[in-house]
């Protein structure tokens, strides 16, 4: 039951387990104690009232740029440790930050794509804490006035019993702020030492803060997936979670309808979208159980343990930190312009112009999907699948361009054959052994009725081997072309009829289903080289003679 509840995003969650209120004795006692002291959650009430989970997200997206946010060192994943560290990145005394314009443009672009207002003047602040991978002892961020505020993100997810209904929801974006990434600490517990890699220190991040408008893991996952697609479309971030370019922290709480929000926990270390859904749902479930058992929720930071599938408190994040924010004195206010405010004598190469960026925004995923549905007549969920796989839309459109087959029919081959093969073999679209050109070639043979669809699948199976043969060559080699000679086909049909007296009797007695068996036999006789529609016609004609 728990699992079923976890997937339902209706907004209300029932009690986690039936045993909740009448749990083991110690829990029961605690429940009494908490209601006696007037705690927010009374055990008696929780037995019946539904729970409303509230989920908000803070997402750190690494900006895709050649150099870091405030220094000239290169940005590159998996470079040798400490090979991409400038004097500033290592916080050598006397070094100063110099803002990278590309990072500002990426943030403005992302802000516009998320319907934010762009602040023409934003400020940088220092956030202080001691940590080995934070060499300056503070992070430069935008606490007071971030570059973009008050946006929204629409995302869709599948609901219903068969997960076949698409529902579109919206989450508000509170703000997008520019800030520095930290380095990486590698703890060697056996030798009790910590190794620090500063390659990542100072890389530009956009922190996207989503309001707590979501209510389950699935919604959180769908929202992040949509954000990821948008970032990738814009090119403002590569947003590959496995490489840490997109990192999600989830704020989770539960409360009863009509009551104020519950105490929230923050779940960190979530490094895939699948884990995000799991972590959020686990945390919701955990909080409900805790509260139903009379416990309380601590305002704490927890980590998701992907192996155990659960969240655990983070020891080094215990206790409240006072970050002692203060304005960054070495950076003047960040000014961006629009067409109206742009001073005439300004060098256009050196300023960020919001309008200029707006005009050049590419089609966002939602628009791309609409266009696909409209242009090719495919189902909305197909458009989602096309966009979710990198390069699949382009592949599909290339096939459509090169074939006479209707786009609606092509989509079946793309999603059922190509995609499932790629998934089975853990390949990306780019790595597909069959190019869009070859697939189009094959579909053209099918469309021209040169081969049957059974034969087409056989050809495709050959093509996967990637031996460089064309579909036509395979068809010739394997003799898969349809028998175009009607007389020859009639003879084969006749032979089958002649050999199946009982079946012919049955058909004549009115059992039409048996006809399929005869068609099958003809197919077998022709090794799939006959057109089943034509065969059926021929058989019917002969049987009615």
């Amino acid at each position: 039951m728990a699992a079923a509840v976890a997937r339902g995003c209706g907004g209300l969650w029932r009690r986690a387990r039936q045993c909740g209120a009448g749990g083991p004795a110690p829990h029961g006692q605690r429940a009494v104690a908490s209601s006696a002291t007037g705690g927010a959650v009374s055990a008696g009430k929780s037995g019946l009232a539904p729970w409303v989970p509230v989920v908000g997200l803070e997402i750190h997206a690494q900006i895709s740029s050649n150099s870091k946010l405030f220094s000239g060192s290169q940005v590159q994943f998996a470079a040798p440790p400490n090979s991409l560290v400038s004097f500033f990145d290592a916080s050598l005394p006397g070094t100063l930050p110099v803002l990278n314009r590309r990072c500002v443009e990426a943030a403005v672009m992302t802000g516009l794509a998320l319907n934010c207002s762009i602040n023409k003047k934003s400020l940088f602040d220092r956030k202080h804490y001691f940590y080995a991978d934070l060499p300056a002892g503070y992070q430069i961020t935008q606490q007071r006035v971030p570059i973009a505020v008050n946006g929204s993100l629409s995302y869709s997810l599948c609901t219903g019993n068969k997960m076949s209904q698409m529902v579109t929801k919206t989450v508000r974006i509170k703000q997008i702020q520019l800030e520095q990434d930290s380095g990486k600490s590698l703890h060697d517990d056996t030798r009790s030492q910590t190794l620090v890699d500063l390659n990542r220190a100072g890389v530009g991040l956009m922190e996207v803060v989503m309001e707590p408008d979501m209510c389950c893991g699935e919604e959180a996952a769908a929202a992040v997936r949509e954000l990821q697609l948008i970032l990738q479309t814009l090119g403002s971030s590569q947003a590959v979670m496995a490489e840490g370019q997109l990192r999600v922290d989830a704020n989770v709480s539960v409360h009863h309808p009509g009551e104020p929000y519950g105490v929230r926990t923050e779940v960190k270390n979530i490094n895939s979208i699948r884990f995000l859904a799991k972590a959020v749902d686990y945390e919701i479930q955990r909080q409900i159980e805790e509260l139903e058992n009379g416990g309380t929720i601590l305002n704490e930071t927890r980590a998701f343990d992907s192996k155990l599938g659960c969240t655990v408190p983070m020891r080094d994040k215990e206790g409240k930190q006072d970050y002692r924010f203060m304005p960054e004195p070495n950076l003047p206010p960040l000014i961006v312009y629009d067409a109206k405010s742009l001073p005439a004598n300004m060098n256009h190469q050196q300023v960020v112009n919001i309008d200029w960026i707006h005009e050049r925004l590419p089609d966002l995923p939602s628009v791309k999907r609409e266009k696909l549905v409209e242009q090719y007549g495919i189902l909305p969920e197909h458009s989602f699948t096309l966009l979710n796989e990198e390069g699949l839309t382009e592949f599909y459109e290339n096939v459509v361009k090169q074939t006479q087959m209707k786009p609606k029919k092509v989509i079946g081959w793309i999603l059922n054959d190509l995609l499932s093969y790629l998934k089975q073999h853990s390949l990306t679209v780019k790595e597909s052994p069959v190019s869009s050109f070859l697939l189009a070639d094959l579909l053209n043979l099918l469309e021209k009725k040169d081969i049957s669809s059974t034969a087409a699948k056989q050809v495709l199976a050959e093509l996967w081997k990637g031996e460089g043969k064309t579909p036509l060559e395979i068809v010739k080699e394997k003799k898969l072309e349809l028998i175009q000679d009607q007389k020859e086909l009639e003879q084969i049909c006749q032979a089958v009829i002649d050999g199946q007296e009982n079946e012919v009797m049955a058909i004549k007695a009115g059992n039409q289903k048996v006809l399929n068996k005869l068609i099958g036999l003809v197919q077998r006789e022709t090794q799939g080289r006959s057109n089943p529609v034509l065969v059926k016609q021929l058989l019917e004609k002969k049987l009615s003679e």
Partner: protein
Amino acid sequence: MLRASLREVSAALKEGRVSPTELCRRCLSLIKSTKFLNAYITVAEEAALKQAEESEKRYSRGQPLGVLDGIPIAVKDNFNTAGIETTCASNMLKGYVSPYNATVVQKLMDQGAVLLGKTNLDEFAMGSGSTDGVFGPVRNPWSYSRQYKEKSVPKSDSEDEESNWVITGGSSGGSAAAVSSFTCFAALGSDTGGSTRNPAAHCGLVGLKPTYGLISRHGLIPLVNSMDVPGILTRCVDDAAVVLGSLAGHDLKDSTTIQDSFKPFELPNLTDISKLSIGIPKEYHAPGLSSEILAVWSKAADLFKSAGAKVIEVSLPHTRYSIVCYHVLCAAEVASNMARFDGLEYGHRSDMNKSTESMYAATRREGFNDVVRGRILSGNYFLLKQNYENYFIKAQKVRRLIANDFVKVFRSGVDILLTPTTLSDAVPYMEFIKEDNRTRSAQDDILTQAANMAGLPAINVPTALSERGLPVGLQFIGRSFQEKQLLTVARWFEKQVKFPMIQLEVVKRHDHDVVQHQKSASFS
């Protein structure tokens, strides 16, 4: 030759009257014989001689790089210098060799200047005496001048000479002592609350604090980023203008420098000052101002008046809040700026290895002196969430009011403000250390730090000798980025007052020795 001004010695180099290596050697040897001043933390003898040789080659080819080519200079030890230790007079950075040059250092080198060494200061430039660095206090060369010895009450025995020496002021006391004792022709200081002007006043030098943003701070180890400015210490106003011209301008590495290009200037010879309006801010008649200084100040005002300038009393009403405000902002930025010294990437690291946190704590306890630690502590207190509004934000607001005071006065038609630089002449070291660093800084910065709060250019011009035979200086504060006007007026004033040259016996002896040595060399 060593007592010449920078421009004079530059002319001598050009005319071949002296060679860069000879000049460099003489300075190095004078540094040795004035070692007791403790002006230098590091003397880069070898590197300096190499630079001098390079310079010599350029001169012999007839292609010197400019006025600064071959000129021996010194740099305060809080500017990064590639290959030469940069310590900030702190255990934290003892032995630290930076991999890069501060922009100002690079600019000097690019113009052929010969870097003799790094000068002493208060630890991380926190102080006003140059007494609180890990390498010990700097002695004011005037302590050993004939002027001081004649006028200060002679106490019979030699023990008194040891206890009578006076401080240089600070925190750029090493740079001031270096220029004042003729070991170099110009030196870089830094000025956050008066750290260049204060020792300039006590050592009888010109000390220029340019407008915030005119000179790059890249490579200057910060005290307060929003107030720090590289300062220039020279023996005359003309020299300060030369050095300013070689340093000013936009730096890609410092986003707070002005975008407009800077044109070096020669100072015009001011003859008619009747169009000049000099403001005398009454608030600078501060409690504790010595009558002697007050008299010098009044006399200077009269001088301008009698030469035809308009001299008017003005008011900068928020001046009295300035020092408190300065301390809050300074401590807050210090707390932040010092956070990077954790022993991991560079600098001192404690042997304590129980945990990362205990290592941080021990490193910072061992690395910083009490003054630095005290400011870090109070700065962090001011920045706490519950205090931020009441301290930091309030101080920022007051800072704005202080800056506005200046704007209003300048808008009313005043060109230059004339004020004292210090409350009194330099005090003996034994006297100075009776008070703690905080109290002393509060007193000593009182007349200088408002210019830092407002970012304005200000200059100390040595004016007269006190009754004890020690230098007294006055401060001119100008409009933002109006250095040319400020220096022009300062130069006119300099000409009128004819401040006497220090009569340093050790230098005389030394010059004599050199001459002797050269003679004997030529005979052999």
